[in-house]
């Protein structure tokens, strides 16, 4: 049955259908609807919605529920996401497969609570201290808020890592008619079938899909945020520190090829747009407009998973691009990663908007047509005069 839903609601529905039964949070715009949805629906399903005293408490409480075997989630926005950073590090270190939603708003500090932004892209990657792997997904539509929440649950379980869902105010509050599947499939670990003497909580050397015990199952699980051995107890031994750090790194590195999630089109074109989240909506529209106006096609790559950044994949997808456009609702964050994926003579144009408004297709069209200095000058015929869209009523 088709339903008219907001992205925030679709995210909560996706979580429930994927088995999330615990939510700890603290209200904050523009993510609050997710908490309200859980407060209403979780008790009906025998789950728990708990409103903590702050976001630090929220993430730690969620980590606790995860350690005790529940599929758990929290949702927040900018300031709350900042407060959660230490706790996200704990989820990573202890390998707790939970979901953290950040519906982005403008920052820093209280910033623009009711306006949209993609300013937390880098915070999602590097917000918590120390070297660490991060997985972050970035939906661009209501349907994708559902789909990527389900994917987040699946990936978190497979890799035993937290997954960040980077939504933004536009995607969270946008309403679209969608038809959502009632059943979804996600991978789940089995319960250990070994005696507790043979059980090591971090004992799986080669794959991460093994059997996992939770608190209260008789396996005497030890969790710590300190570097630990395979039995979960802390150590300062350099060899074990390296083992623990490598183990975390390999979770993402060894699985990158199936993890990467992106869509692309028309990559034969000389100009390619790299985009994500709600900016990708404007970018797609810009591509269509430009094609219609000029008859020239524009390539587009849309990242559904923004972290890990699909470096090798981007290198091959952008091989024939002569210029790359990166539209973002921030002061230019992903453009740096894109620069590293193309040769230095390919200009990477960062199209930025940070006034709380969405990028318009026109702004991106302008950038496609803009003349840019390049180390290797483009052939004459490759330069298209930009055209102003202000006087074109179609926009």
């Amino acid at each position: 049955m088709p339903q008219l839903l907001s992205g925030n609601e679709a995210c909560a529905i996706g979580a429930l259908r994927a088995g999330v039964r615990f939510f700890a949070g603290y209200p904050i715009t523009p993510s609050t609807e997710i908490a309200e949805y859980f407060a209403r629906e979780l008790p009906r399903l025998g789950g728990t919605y708990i409103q903590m005293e702050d976001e630090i408490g929220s993430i730690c409480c969620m980590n606790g529920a995860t350690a005790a075997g529940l599929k758990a989630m929290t949702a927040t926005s900018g300031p709350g996401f900042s407060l959660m950073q230490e706790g996200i590090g704990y989820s990573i270190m202890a390998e707790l497969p939970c979901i953290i939603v950040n519906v982005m708003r403008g920052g820093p500090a209280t910033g623009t609570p009711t306006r949209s932004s993609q300013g937390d892209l880098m915070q999602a990657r590097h917000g918590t201290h120390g070297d660490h792997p991060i997985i972050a997904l970035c939906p661009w539509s209501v349907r994708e808020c559902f789909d990527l929440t389900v994917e987040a649950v699946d990936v978190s379980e497979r890799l035993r890592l937290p997954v960040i869902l980077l939504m933004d105010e536009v995607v969270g509050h946008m309403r679209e008619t969608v038809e959502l599947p009632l059943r979804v499939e996600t991978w789940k670990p089995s319960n250990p079938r070994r005696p507790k003497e043979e059980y090591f909580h971090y004992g799986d050397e080669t794959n991460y899909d093994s059997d996992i015990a939770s608190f209260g199952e008789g396996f005497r699980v030890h969790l710590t945020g300190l570097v630990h051995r395979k039995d979960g107890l802390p150590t300062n031994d350099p060899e074990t520190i390296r083992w623990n750090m490598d183990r975390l790194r390999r979770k993402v590195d060894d699985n990158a090829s199936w993890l990467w999630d992106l869509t692309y089109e028309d990559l034969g074109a000389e100009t390619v747009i790299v985009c994500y989240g709600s900016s990708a909506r404007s970018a797609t529209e810009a591509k269509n407009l430009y094609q219609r106006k000029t008859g020239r096609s524009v390539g587009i790559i849309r990242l559904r998973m923004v972290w890990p950044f699909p470096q090798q994949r981007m290198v091959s997808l952008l091989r024939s691009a002569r210029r790359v456009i990166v539209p973002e609702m921030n002061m230019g964050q992903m453009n740096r990663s894109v620069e590293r994926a193309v040769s230095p003579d390919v200009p990477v144009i960062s199209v930025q908007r940070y006034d709380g408004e969405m990028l318009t297709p026109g702004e991106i069209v302008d950038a496609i047509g803009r003349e840019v200095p390049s180390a290797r000058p483009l052939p004459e015929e490759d330069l298209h005069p930009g055209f102003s869209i202000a006087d074109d009523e179609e926009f």
Partner: protein
Amino acid sequence: MLHECPPGPVGDFLDRFRLDERFPHILCPGCGIGTAMGTMVRSLAELGIGEDELCVVSGIGCSSRVPGYMDTDTFHTLHGRAIPAATGVKQAKPELTLVVYGGDGDIMAIGGNHFIHAARRNMDITVFVVNNRTYAMTGGQYSPTTPTHEKAATAPFGNCERSFDICFMARASGAMFVARSTTYHVAHLKKMMKLALTKTGFSVVEIVSQCPTLYGRHQRIGDGVKMLQWFRDNSVDVSKVEDPWQEQERFVIGVLHDREEVPPYTALYQRVREAAQQADSA
């Protein structure tokens, strides 16, 4: 050494909760944390709480290292965050006994807000606060329980702040059971711990403990033995004071607050579930 404890009931208790290969532990000679841990283990054993029915949660600090020596489910979380983490575990597995074990800095300073709200929520967890009046693990800086005027690593001219009373805070925040004891009064401490563990709802035992390495040195009290003598000579039973909340100089020990139980959060939330399900079928 701890792991050569004599045979008999006490040895059996320690054997049950002890991770042998972790010893010797990192605590200093004469430290009170081990005494408090041993007393906790005996209390758990005497109450018949099994290793597989228990989860011991801590934050960061000397005191918070205790779970790492225990053979049960252990959860060594972030500095100050043991209580919210225990809240998540309890709500996910209500049948488990949850014990939070940590220092005065961990639970009352950085974790103070969580302490207040878990008490208000009446989470069914038992909190053992080891009060050594200092941030020991980081080198003896002043904590919220360091008395005014005392010197500390970050108060070389004397602490200008007022300290606060952990037990008073617990009672004011809505705890069901609040008691205080010291590492000198081991039998008394065990009694307090057992009462706290038996009480349903948020219960707190403040354990006045010695940190001879830092606090004892800064206050020029002396070694562990001197500090224990200081506890012995300066403690008074709650029955012998007019108003336990007004005592400034002595350690008032005993049950300071034991109120009629109200349902813990887990039970209250179960009612929310029932209401939601009833609304569904209506």
